[in-house]
C-alpha cells in the first residue's frame, strides 16, 4: 500500500503546499469530539454500524489516542438489521475493546411492531425514535454523538454541530442556538441534551475518500455481490432472513447489488453495481446521479418527513 501512505504525506508539512480538505474535516471533527467529552458529563457515541458510524468511531479513536474512548457506543437496535451488520458490529467491538450498549424498544417489539405490517412512520417512531429517547433517558446521557451529515437531506443542512434538545428530546429548528466559529455551547440543564454531529460538513464522497485513505473497514454489504432481492418501489430489497414477507408473485432472485446506506433490511434499497472495492465504489459514485437517501424508503413518506422525525427526536 505504498501509494496510500504517499497520500498520507499531507500530515507531514512541507511535503504538501496546503492541508487537504480531508485533513481539515478530520481536524474539525476531532476538535468537536474532544469538546463534547470536555463539556458534557455523560456523552455516548451513536453507533449504527454503517459507514458514517465507522468513520465517526475512527475519528473518536483519533481524538482520544492513546487513551481509550471516554464514552460508550450505543446501538439502537430495531431487530431488523442485516445479519452481516450484527456480525460486523460484534467483530468491531471485540477487536477494539470498546464498550457497546445495545438498546431495543422492547415494548414495541412485544407488541409486534414490524416493518411489514406497520407504516414506516409508525415503525420508525417506535423502534428508532422512541428507542433512542428511552436509551438516552435510561442511561442519563446528556450528549449523543452521531455521524449524520448536512449533505444528506435538506433539513439536516440546517442543523447545528451542537444541536440542542429539550427535556423531551425534541429539536426546535426555529430556536437553534447561534453557533459561531468553532466555539460550541454545550451547556444543558438536567434532562436536556445535545446531539453532536462532528461530521456535519462531510459529503458522501468525503466519507468514502476518507475510508479509502484511512483504510477503515466497513460492512461488506456496501460492495457489490450476488444477493437475493425482490423489486419494490423502484429499488431492490434483499430477503436477508426467513422473516422477509414476500408479496404475492414475488420471488427473490440473485442480483449483483450493493447498498449505499444501511438500515433495516426490509426498508433498505440496493442498487445494481459492479463495485467490489472502495476505489471502484468511489468511481461509480462520481458518475452516479442519485442521492444516497434515494434508496431509503422511510424518507419518502411526505414532504418534510425527515424534519418531522427530527423534531420528535429521531437522529
Amino acid at each position: 500500500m505504498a501509494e496510500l501512505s504517499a497520500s498520507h504525506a499531507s500530515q507531514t508539512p512541507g511535503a504538501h503546499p496546503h492541508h487537504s480538505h480531508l485533513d481539515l474535516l478530520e481536524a474539525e471533527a476531532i476538535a468537536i469530539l474532544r469538546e463534547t467529552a470536555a463539556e458534557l458529563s455523560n456523552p455516548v457515541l451513536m453507533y449504527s454500524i454503517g459507514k458514517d458510524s465507522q468513520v465517526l468511531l475512527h475519528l473518536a479513536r483519533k481524538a482520544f489516542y492513546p487513551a481509550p474512548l471516554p464514552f460508550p457506543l450505543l446501538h439502537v437496535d430495531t431487530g431488523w438489521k442485516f445479519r452481516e451488520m450484527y456480525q460486523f458490529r460484534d467483530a468491531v467491538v471485540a477487536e477494539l475493546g470498546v464498550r457497546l450498549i445495545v438498546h431495543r424498544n422492547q415494548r414495541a417489539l412485544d407488541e409486534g411492531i414490524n416493518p411489514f405490517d406497520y407504516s414506516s412512520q409508525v415503525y420508525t417512531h417506535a423502534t428508532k425514535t422512541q428507542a433512542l429517547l428511552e436509551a438516552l433517558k435510561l442511561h442519563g446521557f446528556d450528549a449523543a454523538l452521531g455521524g449524520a451529515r448536512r449533505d444528506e437531506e435538506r433539513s439536516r443542512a440546517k442543523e447545528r454541530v451542537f444541536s440542542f434538545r429539550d427535556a423531551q428530546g425534541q429539536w426546535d429548528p426555529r430556536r437553534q442556538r447561534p453557533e459561531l466559529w468553532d466555539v460550541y455551547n454545550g451547556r444543558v440543564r438536567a434532562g436536556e441534551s445535545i446531539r453532536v454531529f462532528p461530521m456535519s460538513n462531510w459529503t458522501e464522497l468525503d466519507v468514502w475518500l476518507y475510508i479509502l485513505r484511512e483504510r477503515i473497514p466497513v460492512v461488506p454489504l456496501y460492495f457489490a455481490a450476488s444477493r437475493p432481492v425482490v423489486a419494490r418501489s423502484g429499488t431492490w430489497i434483499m430477503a436477508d432472513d426467513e422473516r422477509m414477507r414476500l408479496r404475492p408473485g414475488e420471488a427473490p432472485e440473485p442480483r449483483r447489488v450493493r447498498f449505499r446506506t444501511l438500515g433495516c433490511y426490509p426498508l433498505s434499497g440496493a442498487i445494481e453495481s459492479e463495485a467490489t472495492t472502495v476505489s471502484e465504489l468511489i468511481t461509480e459514485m462520481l458518475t452516479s446521479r442519485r442521492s444516497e437517501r434515494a434508496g431509503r424508503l422511510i424518507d419518502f413518506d411526505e414532504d418534510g418527513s425527515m424534519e418531522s422525525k427530527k423534531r420528535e427526536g429521531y437522529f
Partner: protein
Amino acid sequence: MVAIISQDPAREPAPVPGAAVTPAALLVTHGERELLRLVVVGSVDDGKSTLIGRLLYECDSLLDDQVAAVERASRGGAIDFSLFTDGLLAEREQGITIDVAYRYFTTGRRKVIVADTPGHVQYTRNMATGASTADAAVILVDARQGVLQQTRRHAHIAGLLGIPYLAVAINKMDLVDYDRATFERLSAEVLTLTSRLGFAEVRCFPVSATQGDWITKPSERAPWHDQTLLAWLEALPHQRRQELAPFRFAVQQVLRPNIDERLLTGRVASGTVRKGDRVVLSPSGRTATVARIATLTGDLAEARAPLSVALGLDVDVDVSRGDVLAHAGALPEVSGAVDASLVWLNEAPLAVGHRYLIKCGPRTVPAYIERIHHRLDLESLREVSAQSLEANDIGEVRISATRSLVFDRYRDNRATGAFVVIDPETNATVAAGMIREPYLGEGSHHFYSRVGAEARAKRLGHHGLVVLLDGGLAADAADRIAGLEHELFRRGVVAAQVGLDLEAAVALAKAGVVALAAVAATGRERARELLRAARIPWTEAEAAEDSVDVVLLAARQGVAS
C-alpha cells in the same frame, strides 16, 4: 442540462467508468482539495437562496432525485432554485430563509462550503452563525431596491468577523434591463459603504439568479462585464492566515493514557509546533519542551494549523483546559479585562452588570459587561452612545472577567480572538464577540472590597505587593520561583505565584498578598504601566531565594520601589 454544464471548465472531467483507477490517483484528484468557506448574505428577498441554488445546479452538485423533487415543488413553472436550500417546512411555507443552510460543491481545485443565511433582521443571529467561519462572502443587493439597512448590517458584520474577500452581487439585473448605469451607481454606493470595513478585496458583479447571468457563465445580456462570480471564487488566494500567525494551542483536555504519560489534546489554532520546541503555558507562565506530537497514525515531527493533535511535554507542569501553549517571544495576551466588539444575538437585551459567561476557545469564565462604549447606528453609520444593546445591535463594550482570558486581538488571530457570550440563567448564546484590545487600566475587576489595605496589612504584618521576577522563561525558573515563594512563606509572608497573569497579581496584591509574577524582559514595560495605573506597589527582583530580603523589605514598606 448535463450537456450544457459539461462545457463549464469548473466542472470535473467525468471519470471513465470501468477504467482502472488507483486509490492514490483517486485521493490526489478528489481528496486533496483546498477548502473554501463561503457565506451569502444580504437583505431579505434579495435572492441569496436562489443564487446558491443556481450555483449548485450549474456546478453540477445536485443529484437527479433532488432536482426532480424541486421540479415537482416548483409546480410546473420555472425551477425555484431557492428550494434547494430552504429545507424547513416553515421556510417553504413563508418563502423566506429562517436558519442558515450549509451546502457543498466542488470546483476544479476546491471544496466549497457555502452557507445560505437569512436576510430577515429577526434572524441576524443565524446570519452571524453562517458568516463566522467564512473566507469569502457574497453580499446581494436587489438592483431595484439598492442598499438597505439590512445590507449595511450584514456588510458590517461580515467586516467585523474579518472575512477578507467580498463579492457584491447586484442581483435581479433582469428586472432593470441589465442597465449598466444602475449597476455602476449601486456598485459605487456599496463600495463607499465597504471601504471602511476592512475587506482585503471587494468586487462587484451584475447578476440575475433566476436567469443565470454572470454566476457560472458569462452573459450576452450584460456584455460590458468581464468575470463570473464562480471564476472570482476560483481565483481567490487560498487562506493561510492561521498557518502564518504565531503558534497557539489551546488545551481542550488533559489525557492520562497511563500513569506515566500525560497528553494535552487540542487544535493547533495557528502557526506550527515542532517536536523539541520550548513552549510557554499561559496564564501560568510555566515552560516546557514538546516531547511528543501524538496521533493514532503515528507521531509527527511537526503540526501546522489547524490540525488536531495531542502534545506530550517533557515535564509534569500543571496544565488545565483552556490553557494556551505558545512560543516564548510571541505570547498571547493574558488579561481579565478586554475591549471588544459585540454582535448581540438575543431577544433579551444586554444587561450591564449581569453575570455572563465568556467562552473563548475552550476556556469559559464568568464575566461582566462593565460598560458600553457605543453602538453602531445603521442608518447614519455613526457610533452612538447606548445604555444597552438589543437583538441584532452591533457595539463596542468593556468586559471584565473574574478570571483571566488568554487571547489575541481578533484582527491578528481569528481563532484566539473570538468568543461567545452565554447567559448562564438560560444557557443561551447571547452574543458573538471579537477582542479588540486587552484593557490594562485600573479597577478592571469586580472587587468592591470593604476591607481596606491598611486593615489587611495590619492583620498580615505586610502590605500587598506584586513582585516582577526575572528569568521567568529560564529552564529552572519555576523551581527558583518556587524556592523564593517557599522562603517568603517560611518567614511569615503570605506569598503566591501567578505565572504570567498580571490581572491575578493585581487582584491578589489588593487582597494583601505578595504576588510573584514571572515577567520576561519584553513584557516589563507593559507590566509597569499596568501596575502604575492600578496604583499597586511593586518591586522587581531576581527569581532566586536570595531575593527574599528585597521582597520582605518592600512588603513591609508597602510602596513601589
